[in-house]
């Protein structure tokens, strides 16, 4: 089920109202059922995959907790193999088979591996990672194994974050299902506000930008370099609004019922370095990779010292790229980030000295612009679908200089021939609005700021946003970009 659909508009209040009407001991059954329904709106039979991994991990958790040192590790490996195995089969088998094919052809061999017609189960990359965080934390002794099967199943399947995160940790989420939640006015209001804002970001900002720039990315050959530059600049905002919008709806939905999910985005465009960017963008994923891949890997290889860090960064981000998609574009995207972080690691002292010579405001402004440019440029890999497609876009970018140097008026009319002037202006205004809210958030959480305003102002804002969503929102069922992961 999509969050930006009329189905969800009905599903959410019904589920929430029944939740609060039921006595606490039945609530887990209700939420679990609702989550199954939510999931099965996509491809019903795939729920069997979830049941498979849930049963394995539930058993693994208990076995790990009761076992001695040596067998603990074996049970952990069993759980990891089951989850990664399912993920690899459904997500990576075709990519693997196609590339082995290619390699065999190039070396004169014959293809043997059949390509299977498998549709990726929705949310697979998210819930398998969330499940693995459970067994790893039980293994590390940071989490008690959950004995209640239904509650464990709910931890994996909790519908607000089932299909696109935030990827939760058991220490944060699991115990909340045991707690009796009372309907709380502040939670309901904060949750609804978050949903409204998330929906606005997704249905109005992201989808409006998408509608404008999709033709450019789909057929860049037909567009001027100026239009391509504009599309690349706008895309990162589309990606951000799409994904953070979804996260906000997920967090808000959970909040209305009294559940606190982790923050997934924290004003990523104010990052002054790529290192900082990964502390602000898709936080639940980057902390997952840090805690369960990077840190243990570097710890094991610590005698390599600096080179352990280099290897750790490259491998972790290679895997992160791969997590995003079974394609060379994503792998390249990830590896580029790994290389960028290695660069920042080696040049930290030099950069601090150099930038330290500038006045602070310039230091920060320059750092942010450089970081933003890097992020915007690399996001092309997210959109271009193929590596060749991405490089075509990059090749066209510098063409803006010759277009602008020949005739500004010709360039301008070409741009407005390529991209609708009104739509372009709307998108820029929406981005301005977005950045103004981010700027405000730097001083005070948005929720608190809105909460402080007089009632008339608050209601006005809510109504304006809801009306904009209705009026400007694109409801032709545009998929959330991160659903493909």
């Amino acid at each position, binding site marked *: 089920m999509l969050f930006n659909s009329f189905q969800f508009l009905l599903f959410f209040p019904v589920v929430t109202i029944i939740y609060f009407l039921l006595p606490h001991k039945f609530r887990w059954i209700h939420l679990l059922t609702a989550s199954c329904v939510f999931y099965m709106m996509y491809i019903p039979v795939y729920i069997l995959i979830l049941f498979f991994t849930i049963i394995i991990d539930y058993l693994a958790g208990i076995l790990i907790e009761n076992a001695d040192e040596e067998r603990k590790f074996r049970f952990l490996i069993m759980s990891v193999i089951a989850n990664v195995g399912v993920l690899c089969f459904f997500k990576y088998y075709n990519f693997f088979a196609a590339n082995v094919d290619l390699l065999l052809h190039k070396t004169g061999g014959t293809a043997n591996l059949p390509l299977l017609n498998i549709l990726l189960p929705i949310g697979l990359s998210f819930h398998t990672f969330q499940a693995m965080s459970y067994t790893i934390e039980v293994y*590390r002794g940071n989490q008690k194994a959950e004995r209640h099967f239904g509650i464990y199943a709910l931890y994996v399947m909790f519908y607000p974050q089932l299909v696109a995160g935030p990827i939760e940790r058991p220490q944060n989420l699991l115990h909340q299902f045991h707690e009796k939640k009372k309907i709380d006015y502040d939670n309901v209001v904060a949750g609804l506000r978050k949903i409204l804002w998330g929906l606005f970001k997704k249905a109005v900002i992201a989808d409006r930008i998408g509608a404008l720039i999709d033709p450019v990315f789909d057929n860049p050959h037909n567009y001027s370099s100026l239009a391509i530059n504009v599309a690349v600049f706008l895309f990162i905002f589309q990606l951000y609004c799409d994904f953070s919008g979804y996260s906000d709806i997920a967090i808000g939905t959970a909040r209305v019922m009294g559940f606190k999910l982790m923050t997934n985005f924290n004003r990523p465009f104010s990052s002054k370095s790529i290192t900082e960017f990964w502390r602000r963008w898709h936080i639940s994923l980057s902390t997952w990779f*840090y805690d369960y891949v990077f*840190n*243990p890997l*570097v*710890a*094991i290889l*610590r*005698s390599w*010292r*600096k080179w*352990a*860090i280099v290897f750790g960064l490259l491998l972790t981000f290679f895997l992160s790229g791969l997590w995003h998609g079974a394609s060379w574009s994503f792998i390249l995207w990830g590896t580029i980030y790994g290389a960028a972080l290695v660069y920042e*690691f080696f040049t930290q002292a030099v950069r601090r000295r150099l930038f330290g010579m500038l006045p602070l405001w310039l230091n920060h402004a320059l750092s942010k612009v450089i970081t933003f440019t890097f992020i915007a440029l690399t996001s092309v890999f997210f959109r271009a679908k193929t590596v060749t497609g991405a490089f075509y876009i990059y090749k066209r970018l510098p063409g803006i200089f010759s277009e602008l140097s020949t005739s500004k008026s010709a360039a301008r009319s070409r741009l407005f021939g390529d991209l609708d002037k009104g739509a372009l202006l709307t998108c820029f205004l929406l981005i301005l609005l977005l950045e103004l809210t981010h700027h405000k958030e730097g001083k005070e959480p948005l929720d608190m700021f809105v909460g402080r305003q007089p009632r008339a102002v608050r209601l006005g804002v809510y109504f304006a946003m809801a009306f904009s969503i209705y009026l400007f929102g694109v409801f032709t069922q545009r998929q959330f970009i991160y659903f493909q992961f």
Partner: protein
Amino acid sequence: MQLNNVFRKCFKRQDITVSPETSAADVTGWDSLTHMILINDIERHFSIKFKLMEIMKFNNVGDMLACIKKKVNT
């Protein structure tokens, strides 16, 4: 304290003084990336080897100290 000297050598600064409550937030240069280099320096200095699970549980200098003492005494 010997551990102090290890910190000073690792982060190349003489003004570092650590206490049991010190953590990465308190020392410039000690971050998630350089943490393992520090651990390796400590191991080399005291001729000990930490287990992976022990390293994962270090929250501050005090945790490290307790572990070092245990290993040096056995």
